[in-house]
């Protein structure tokens, strides 16, 4: 089969994420319609669009938090199927940051960061602690390591969530509206960490409404509406000269407020 050949060809320096003709339904609701998107290694893609447009669902398909029903998704050359082994492989390559942080409230910040290292990677605890502290320093909160998530501000919690995902040394990071649940004064500290991460060359797929951030770090903008990708363009073109009327309308709504 030609598709399988393609799959084996793209291991190595090929695309990080490749989506081909992906469809998804929630019962009767057609939430993703014929999605074709390729993200290269080291590329930063920002996905935007009105709520309900399917952008969160799209990135949740990349680590199989949602299953697609038609089409193919390859992550680092591995196709996502029902095969649990493939899903495990992919989840080890892909880190995710959620809108609601989803930190584990019964564990300290440090334990949040080390749990996957010790249980999935079977790393000795001392070594895992070292890795975790390294990333907590990178998101600038090493001093909070022994606290519980509930004792931190929203911005601090989200930075812990980023550190927690980075501890697994993923090759791709997914961000699902990482700043939407934050108080305004905390958005910047999280975006700063994300800019740092982008500058380090991480492959990133970011769903966000922070257009300033998008302008600064995105290599490409993806605009979605009603389950379809309407427009893909570099930010310089996307913001100044969008091709589609729907993009224009969306941008006028989001930039004017």
């Amino acid at each position, binding site marked *: 089969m030609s598709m399988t050949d393609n799959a084996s060809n793209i291991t190595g320096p090929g695309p990080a994420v490749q989506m081909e003709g992906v469809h998804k339904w929630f019962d009767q609701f057609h939430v993703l319609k014929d999605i074709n998107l390729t993200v290269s290694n080291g590329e930063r893609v920002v996905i935007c669009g009105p709520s309900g447009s399917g952008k969160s669902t799209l990135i949740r398909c990349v*680590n199989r*938090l949602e299953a697609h029903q038609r089409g193919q998704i390859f992550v680092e050359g591995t196709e996502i199927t029902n095969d*649990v082994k493939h899903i*495990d492989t992919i*989840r*080890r390559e*892909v*880190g*995710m940051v*959620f809108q*609601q*942080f*989803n*930190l*584990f*409230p*019964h564990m300290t910040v440090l334990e949040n960061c080390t*749990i*996957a290292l010790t*249980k*999935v990677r079977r790393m000795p605890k001392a070594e895992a602690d070292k890795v975790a502290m390294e990333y907590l320093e990178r998101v600038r909160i090493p001093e909070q390591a022994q606290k*519980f*998530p*509930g*004792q931190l501000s929203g911005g601090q919690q989200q930075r812990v*969530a980023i550190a*927690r*995902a980075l501890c*697994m040394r993923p090759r791709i990071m997914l961000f699902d509206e990482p700043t939407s649940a934050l108080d305004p004064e905390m958005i910047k500290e999280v975006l700063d960490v994300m800019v740092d991460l982008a500058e380090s060359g991480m492959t990133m797929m970011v769903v966000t409404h922070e257009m300033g951030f998008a302008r600064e770090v995105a290599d490409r903008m993806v605009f979605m509406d009603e389950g379809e990708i309407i427009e893909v363009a570099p930010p310089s073109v996307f913001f100044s000269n969008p091709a589609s009327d729907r993009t224009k309308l969306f941008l006028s709504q989001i930039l004017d407020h």
Partner: protein
Amino acid sequence: MTEAKTYTPGQHPNLPPPPNMVGSMAWLRDNLFSSWTNGALTFLSAALLIFIVPPVLDWAFLNATFSGESRDACAAATGACWAVITARFDQFVYGLYPSEATWRINIAFVGLLIAVTPWLAPRVPFKKAFVIFSLAYPLLALWLLAGGLGLEPVYTGRWGGFMLTLVIGVTGIVASLPLGIMLALGRQSDLPIVHTLSVTFIEVVRGVPLIMFLFMASNMLNLFLPQGVTFDLLMRALIAVTLFSAAYLAEVVRGGLQAIPKGQLEAAQAMGLNYWQAMAYIILPQALRTVIPGIVNSFIALFKDTSLVAIIGLFDLLNMAKAIVTDVTWQGLSIEVYVFSAFIYWIVCFGMSRYSIWLEGRLGGGIEGTR
């Protein structure tokens, strides 16, 4: 009264509260006499206490008889005849267990206390050794109580009293919690077979009275077993109590599982934890914590329900008490015997209740208002 004083903004010191807000007078006013009705209720309660407490103390302690060989020893006194308890104490505790072998029960009891320590105490030294002992304990207890391998065998029909109640209660609690957790997870499973089996089991068991199960275990099982095969009556009661309690626990645990936001499982999965790892480290620790009161409530109910085994002819604490009441030497002392038995049940159940309150308080610290 000091005269009103003004401070420049940002310079206001912390002042002490007004005098009528603190001290014993404030406590009396807030707690006993906060309104006319509360004041009246305070006096009424005080009057009731004065009427009730002295006669009870009189009966239970001051005019009570604590030792004697038969009922006649109590003839002189107007109070309780606790002599029946002291004279028959061994039967209350050990049932009809051979008296020369009761030391085995005592050792098993001490072993039980050691075995539960690592699970109940937050931090113990040598935890690993404790846990290994805990895991080996059921076999050790079985050997000590039932005998064999060098110990005189004691047929389970002679087990009785508080010891039997404890055996059924502890076995039921220890076996039904894991089973209940598995049933709760099964009920939430995406696998249709596992889901259907779990739901069917839970709904069937919850829809039938425990006594019915015990009757069925004691009578009907023989119909299905081949001729000549016997199945220990106590073992049947243990299985019935465990399965019954597991069905209730499953629903309690399900409540806890539903209280955990979906994002917790998603975050665990996104980090590469598999289903069992996510359950063991992320979901269950949180879910069980939120339903500690419900779990302990089930345990307390289970411990009291052990008294139902009297119906199928096992001599647990309550049935033993009943037997002692009918003893000719101690005729007419049902109040003393039942009050004493009730007190034992109460001690154990109250202990569980206080433990759960303490546990909730300890686990609640530091992790409030999260996610």
